[in-house]
């Protein structure tokens, strides 16, 4: 049982604030991912939890006990590093058993634990090798093995897949998910890769410049991003953002960008009613835009556009289009053939549009 809680945790490095007033609860056995661009404070958060950095202010709880002054080795945590950080002078067996040896466990028990972990990860054959004799993927497994052997309450993973090639990364991602489904620990995972965050986690914490932007289940964040940053960070290709003017026509609201009237109406919600200015930012995910050759769609619900580039990815097509000078990206699973400069038209799924305030960049519901 290990619940983790941050209470108003701040970390300063000189004048630089790396982490600003973080309050976050991570439930027992939950898989939580901290995600954001470099310098967003995610690794600092992990290091504070690991006891490798001291918080400048605020309290950190593990299992309802304040651990600010508990040394790292006594927090019952295990950590996997981006660089794997295996001990180069020890073989795999000693690497995995080192943490237990330091704690004075008997050799027979260490051997048993190492064998069990090695079996789970399928690295029994590597136990007598040195780290330099292993491939990147194997090192990654050993680093995981070192964490598992300790059977800790909390697993901390700091960008564990970043050093692997793309193919191996996808495979290890699935393996990680399976592995942590089997294990009984709380997992805090740090990555800058939104795909890892979306696929692995129970909940995702999106961070920027030391401040938490939004916390929630991956799909909840994807479907209801709290601000422009979260909306743009999650999803690939990224969400399209267009500056628009709000036009109030009787009971209905519509959006215009220059001469273009976007082909859907909006219900007059409280947020929109309270809006002081008329300008908003429209956000549309690429998969919510449908592109068709000119004339195939009903004129009233579509907008004419020009095709810039079509990228055939095999399973999907990424289409770059221009609507009155604004570039949009659409993805479609169906076949789409067009040449650069061809005229086409688009429709947008009205239930999937997002509106943001250009001043606060917050979501307007």
């Amino acid at each position: 049982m290990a619940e983790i809680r941050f209470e108003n945790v701040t970390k300063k490095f000189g004048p630089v604030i790396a982490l600003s007033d973080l309050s976050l609860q991570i439930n027992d056995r939950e898989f939580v991912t901290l995600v954001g661009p470099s310098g967003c404070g995610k690794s600092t958060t992990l290091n504070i939890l690991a006891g490798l950095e001291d918080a400048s202010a605020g309290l950190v709880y593990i299992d309802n006990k304040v651990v600010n002054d508990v040394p790292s080795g006594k927090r019952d945590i295990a950590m996997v590093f981006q660089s794997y950080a295996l001990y180069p002078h020890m073989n795999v067996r000693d690497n995995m058993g080192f943490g237990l040896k330091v704690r004075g466990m008997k050799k027979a028990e260490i051997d048993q634990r190492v064998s069990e972990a090695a079996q789970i990860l399928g690295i029994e054959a590597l136990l007598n090798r040195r780290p330099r004799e292993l491939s990147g993927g194997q090192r990654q497994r050993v680093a995981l093995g070192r964490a598992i052997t300790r059977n800790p309450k909390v697993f901390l993973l700091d960008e564990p897949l970043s050093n692997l090639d793309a193919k191996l990364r996808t495979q290890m991602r699935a393996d990680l998910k399976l592995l942590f489904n089997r294990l009984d620990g709380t997992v805090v995972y740090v990555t800058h890769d939104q795909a890892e965050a979306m696929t692995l986690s129970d909940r995702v914490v999106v961070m920027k410049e030391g401040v938490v932007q939004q916390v929630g289940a991956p799909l909840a964040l994807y479907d209801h991003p709290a601000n422009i940053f979260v909306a743009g960070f999650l999803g690939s290709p990224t969400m399209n953002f267009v500056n628009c003017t709000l036009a109030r026509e009787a009971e209905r609201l519509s959006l215009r960008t220059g001469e273009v009237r976007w082909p859907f109406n909006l219900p007059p919600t409280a947020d929109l009613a309270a809006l002081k200015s008329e300008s908003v930012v429209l956000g549309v995910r690429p998969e919510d835009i449908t592109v068709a050759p000119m004339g195939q769609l009903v004129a009233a619900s579509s907008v004419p556009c020009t095709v810039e580039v079509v990228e055939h990815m095999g399973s999907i097509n990424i289409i770059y289009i221009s609507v009155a000078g604004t570039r949009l990206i659409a993805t479609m699973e169906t076949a789409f053939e067009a040449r650069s400069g061809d005229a086409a038209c688009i429709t947008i799924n009205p239930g999937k549009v997002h509106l943001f305030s250009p001043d606060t960049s917050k979501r307007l519901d």
Partner: protein
Amino acid sequence: MTTNYRLQKQISTVLLYVVIFIVLVIIAFPVYWLISTSLKPGLESSTYPPTYIPSRLVFDNYVAVLKSENVKFLKNSLIVAVASTFLTTIMGAMAAYALSKTYIAFWIRRALMLWILVTRIFPPITTAIPYYVIIKNLGLADTYAALIITYVSYGLPFVIWLMLGFFQDLPADIEKAAIVDGCSMWQRFRQVVLPLTLPGLAVTAIFAFIFAWNEFLYASILTSFTAKTLPVVISTFISDQYLRWGEMSAMGSMMIIPVMIFALAAQKYLVRGLTFGAVKG
């Protein structure tokens, strides 16, 4: 074109070997001169013009030098050099580790480092007399301790500065992993950091050994008989009446042997070590 290029390449290879040969001769000649002088009969070592190759090989000088008293001085030299090498390396490594890994204010660390370096800047002779008085008042004159303390204090700055580079180049994550694994600072140093910086330790140990083995000034000031070391013994072959070149060379030749054995044993670390500490990987 191809032949031309091949010829050019061959010429440059030959030139390279010629240069290497010249450098080798320059380095090896003093050693050759030392050994050949030690094997020359009688007064041949003082003749003019000098003989480059001994007229015949005799071992009289070695027999004269290897009398029992000198064996005792050899023992002194070994004890002092080994003990001071061991202490300098271990203490220096610990000091460097503490300096590189503990959180102290930048300016304090800088001041400490500079202070450590300053002790190496002035020539040893400047402190010789106060040093002699202190050692004498401590009742340590003519003891191993006098020399060992001196050599350790002179060797430490070098070891600290060199090892600091090695420790700073260690990947931070490895130490973090050890911290999370529950290691205390000492366990980290002993079980993770030291094994990984063995090349650095080997380099510093060689330099510390060579320094202690060859040191003459303090050995001649601080010892008179009991703790006298070989360099001081060699100096006794110089008197106002004559220079005993033969015996001096014989002892000098023998003095090279332990250093050579030590250096050869640690050679693979030496080459790796000198670059390991300097360049970030």
